[in-house]
């Protein structure tokens, strides 16, 4: 369907060829001036014919119709016009064109006051621009994969085929990628019957018959990266992939090749003359492709304008097909043999003839032609104007490796400025435009690449295919005489004209990289494939320097646009990253838990027994723990088994406090610093035997701490006899907390002696219940009497259910992460929000923990004067002073009466409603910390325009003497 009308085409058609065959020549409106545009090219270099494909969530804007393979059910529409391309109100802008030169937006909309650009920008963006993306979820499936090969051949034209054949004949595994739907490259544009096509068919058959060649069609090499890694994009639209069957629409492939052969060919350049953008003006090679490959008459009366031999082949094919063709070659002298060949098929040959301006508006109707040595300007009528300004090797990919292209005068174009190790050029990309020379270089590249991968050539060099040849010469494009009139476009997609280039030159933006940014030349979705070299030629002429001196731009990936979907692959939604589930996960779901993401973990947020939403539930869960007993899952804590003779010494080094004297049967709270003295993590370590320790870390820092301990043991302290192993997944953890915790344990696990004498505060014991090991640590995060129980993960659910069932009479219930975090705020325990790798031990009020009589990681840099300065932002408690207001995390703290501006004196890190105090409380960092205890301050939250009064207090809001812990 094309714009709600059915469209007929043939298999093998592109959207562009089908539309041309249906008589549609108006492909869209231009970006800035809304000028009518047709199809300039027949391939990836197309700047004009950008369409929006698909509907709803499948909408893909800005797709070149010239590379869109036609398939049944394709839905397409033109863009950048309202109400329609055929009648576009925006075209009124083209009447203002003299007022819209390069830099116009910057100059006009920047003043008179700051912010002007912000005001104007949305309007400008709506008037200009391309297709629109949609907000719906894309229902298609995208994938990513890795692939490996010896030799990757990029490009399936004659050079790519010849290179693949040579490399495979030498024994290398070969992957041949071609962005098109067929192999053959430029040969596909040759007449559909004849010797050349027979030869192409035979070469393709020979390559496909080789068992060690994999051919990937509809696959674009988008970027080349270090280590001969190439990003490929496979497209499967033509198969109409069904996501429900697991079929991917696009696959992003990371190809690891040992060697790369670039057989990327060359692209034809436009000529620059007045109104060279009228529909019906196209590249000569494009006209030839539409004629021969797609059997479409691109016009009935053609003109071919050229400065080189290449376009003569197109002219001859057009003439043979019965299309009237005068050929206008700007060169005075053209090879007589070529002229004879053209005249033999009835072509009107004119040399020394320069097209200065096209005529027609919505379609080309003719051209003005100047003749060398004559002031006479001739008018020639036409409905198709084919142009050729020479050929530019496709050097984009070789440039991705950081090698600047170099200019070659003889072909008037840039070629790769060398190749990285293991990379080779084949054919037109290296400037070999004559077919036989291209094939020779390709066969040589194939052999060299195979050899690089360690494959000797067992049967001797493969002779290059023999084929009839045409030499190639050109003359640099000649500038149009001044006063020829019309707009001469250099960059069609971004509407950059020769006048814009002259203006950029005048205003000092003459360097190519500056020119590009000032005029936006080459910055469209086509990345200047048809415009870069013409711009460099023109700027070099304006500056009066050579091309090499004028320089070139830097090509960056991707070569052609890549959909975001393909880059994301399957990493979308909940597949964005791995999810870690506690061994108790199913139990939580069954118990009515609402789950929440906590880093990679999915944890119980609150339980529905306590309320219908988090705000209602967590305070009920807090009250349960403060008044009776609750049970929480703490399996996500990092758990590290530390063993062997030097374990005590090792722990004593990594924790700021002493661990050398920790006796078996006891646990100790400890804090670790980074080398720069910021706090890394806190946690507890229990000693269960002479050489056996069990460390826990915070959930957030578990991986970091593990890696850090391994770093120290493997790089710096290799003399220490210690082993560390992560056992996070092996042990489930649960916390039973509240004044009735001991009674609950006695009911559920009578085998365990949890009496205060046997298991005092900070005691750590191992038990066996029904043959299952249980580790019990009496320590508290909430400030209540509490025990942490660790059990092998497979027994987690059994223990959890036993605790809830047997202690049911005590009112035990599960509580979630929200209550867990709120209880610790009341007790003044720091956690992840305070341990942000910026705060020091002293900032967090933990300075007294640090041992004075031993070395520990971070000790020396902790002593730095700035880290000990009294004005540092350090930990405080905050009590809300306004009964009807609330505190908010992230609020900025100001002294009372101070202007509410700037970064303030600190900020709120953690907030909760305190069930014990009946008010909002918070932890935060404040300049000078607790030396301001008792002062009233202001908590400002500019996003909601709130200011709330609060008082600085001790962060230990409840039970400061720890009486509840020692019952």
């Amino acid at each position, binding site marked *: 369907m094309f714009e709600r009308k059915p469209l007929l085409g043939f298999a093998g058609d592109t959207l562009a060829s089908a539309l041309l065959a249906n008589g549609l020549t108006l492909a869209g409106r231009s970006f800035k001036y809304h000028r009518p545009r047709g199809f300039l090219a027949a391939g990836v270099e197309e700047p004009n014919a950008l369409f929006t494909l698909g509907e709803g969530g499948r909408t893909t804007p800005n797709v070149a119709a010239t590379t869109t393979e036609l398939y049944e059910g394709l839905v397409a529409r033109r863009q950048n016009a309202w109400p329609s391309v055929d009648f576009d109100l925006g075209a009124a802008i083209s009447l203002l064109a003299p007022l819209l030169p390069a830099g116009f937006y910057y100059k006009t909309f920047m003043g008179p006051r700051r912010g002007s650009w912000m005001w104007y920008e949305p309007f400008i963006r709506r008037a200009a621009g391309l297709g629109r993306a949609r907000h719906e979820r894309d229902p298609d499936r995208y994938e990513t994969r*890795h692939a490996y090969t010896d030799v990757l051949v990029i490009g399936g034209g004659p050079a790519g085929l010849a290179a693949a054949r040579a490399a495979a004949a030498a024994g290398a595994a070969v992957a041949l990628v071609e962005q098109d739907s067929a192999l053959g490259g430029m040969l596909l544009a040759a007449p559909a019957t004849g010797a050349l096509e027979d030869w192409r068919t035979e070469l393709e058959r020979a390559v496909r018959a080789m068992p060690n060649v994999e051919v990937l069609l509809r696959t674009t090499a988008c970027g080349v*990266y*270090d*280590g*001969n*890694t190439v990003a490929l994009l496979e497209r499967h639209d033509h198969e109409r992939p069904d996501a429900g069957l697991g079929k991917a629409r696009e696959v992003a492939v990371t190809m*690891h090749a*040992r060697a790369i052969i670039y057989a990327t060919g060359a692209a034809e350049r436009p000529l620059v003359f007045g109104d060279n953008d009228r529909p019906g003006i196209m590249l000569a090679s494009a006209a030839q492709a539409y004629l021969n490959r797609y059997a479409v008459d691109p016009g009935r009366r053609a003109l071919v304008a050229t400065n080189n031999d290449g376009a003569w082949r197109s002219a001859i094919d057009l003439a043979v097909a019965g299309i009237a063709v005068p050929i206008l070659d700007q060169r005075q002298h053209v090879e007589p043999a070529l002229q004879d060949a053209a005249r033999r098929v009835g072509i009107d040959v004119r040399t020394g003839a320069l097209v200065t301006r096209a005529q027609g508006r919505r379609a080309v109707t003719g051209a003005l032609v100047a003749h060398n040595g004559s002031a006479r300007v001739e008018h020639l009528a036409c409905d198709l104007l084919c142009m050729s300004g020479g050929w530019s090797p496709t050097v984009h990919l070789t440039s991705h490796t950081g090698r600047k292209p170099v200019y070659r005068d003889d072909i008037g174009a840039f070629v790769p400025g060398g190749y990285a*190790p*293991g990379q080779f050029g084949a054919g037109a990309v290296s400037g070999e435009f004559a077919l036989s020379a291209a094939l020779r270089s390709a066969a040589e590249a194939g052999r060299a690449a195979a050899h*690089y*991968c*360690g494959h000797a050539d067992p049967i001797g060099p493969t002779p290059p295919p023999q084929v009839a040849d045409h030499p190639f010469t050109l003359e640099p494009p000649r500038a149009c005489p001044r006063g020829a009139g019309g707009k001469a476009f250099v960059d069609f997609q971004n509407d950059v004209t020769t006048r814009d280039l002259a203006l950029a030159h005048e205003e000092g933006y003459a360097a190519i990289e500056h020119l590009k940014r000032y005029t936006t030349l080459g910055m469209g979705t086509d990345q200047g494939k048809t415009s870069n070299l013409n711009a460099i030629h023109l700027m070099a002429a304006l500056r009066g320097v050579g091309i090499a001196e004028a320089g070139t731009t830097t090509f960056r990936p991707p070569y052609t646009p890549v959909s975001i979907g393909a880059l994301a692959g399957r990493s979308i939604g909940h597949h964005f990253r791995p999810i870690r589930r506690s061994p108790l996960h199913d139990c939580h779901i069954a118990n009515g838990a609402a789950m929440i993401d906590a880093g990679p973990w999915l944890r119980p947020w609150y339980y529905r027994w306590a309320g219908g939403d988090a705000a209602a539930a967590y305070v009920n869960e807090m009250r349960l723990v403060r008044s009776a007993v609750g049970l929480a899952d703490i399996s996500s804590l990092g758990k590290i088994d530390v063993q062997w003779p030097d374990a005590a010494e090792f722990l004593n*080094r990594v924790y700021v406090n002493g661990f050398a004297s920790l006796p078996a049967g006891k646990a100790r709270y400890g804090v670790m610093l980074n*080398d*720069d003295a910021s706090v890394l993590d806190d946690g507890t370590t229990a000693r269960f035997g002479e050489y056996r320790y069990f460390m826990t870390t915070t959930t957030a820092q578990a*991986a970091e701490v593990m*890696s850090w301990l*391994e*770093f120290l*043991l*493997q*790089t*710096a*302290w*290799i003399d220490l006899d210690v082993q560390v192993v992560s056992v996070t997944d092996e042990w489930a953890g649960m916390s039973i907390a509240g004044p009735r915790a001991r009674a609950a344990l006695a009911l559920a696990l009578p085998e365990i002696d949890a009496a205060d004498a046997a298991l005092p505060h900070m005691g750590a014991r191992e038990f066996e219940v029904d043959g299952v090991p249980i580790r019990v640590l009496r320590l508290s995060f909430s400030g209540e009497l509490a025990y942490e129980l660790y059990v092998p993960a497979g027994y987690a659910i059994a223990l959890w259910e036993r605790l809830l069932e047997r202690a049911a009479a005590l009112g035990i219930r599960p509580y979630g992460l929200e209550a867990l975090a709120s209880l610790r705020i009341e007790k003044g325990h720091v956690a992840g929000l305070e341990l942000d790798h910026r705060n020091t031990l002293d900032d967090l009020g933990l300075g007294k923990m640090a041992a004075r009589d031993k*070395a520990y990681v971070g000790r*020396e*840099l902790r*002593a*730095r004067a700035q880290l000990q300065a009294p004005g540092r932002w350090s930990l405080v408690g905050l009590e809300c002073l306004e009964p009807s207001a609330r505190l908010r995390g992230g609020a900025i703290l100001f002294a009372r009466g101070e202007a509410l501006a700037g970064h303030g004196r600190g900020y709120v890190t953690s907030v909760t409603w305190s069930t014990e105090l009946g008010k909002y409380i918070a932890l935060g960092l404040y300049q000078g910390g607790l030396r301001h205890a008792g002062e009233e301050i202001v908590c400002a939250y500019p996003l909601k325009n709130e200011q709330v009064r609060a008082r600085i207090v001790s962060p230990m809001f409840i039970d400061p003497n720890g009486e509840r812990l020692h019952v």
Partner: protein
Amino acid sequence: MATGPTGNDGMLRIPCPHCGERDYTEFRYGGDASKIRPPHGTADARAWQEYVFLFDNPKGAHLEYWQHVLGCRQWLVLERDTATNAVGKAHLARSQGSP
């Protein structure tokens, strides 16, 4: 630096002495391996300051730590060219000093 058919031409594949050649995404970077950490207990703050904060930024050959976090968990010392990303040999960090 090894180049050519049997070597590693880029940093994207790291030769782990235990696990063989693996994609770099299995590893975590650990900084300059030519720097020597002051012995534990060194009381000279300046030595620590240099170790923690002052780095050369060489163009070319570089020795660096990488940990095979999704493999054997070993910290390696790897040769890498910072200009070309060509990867050379790797050995276990714990075996440094021994032949």
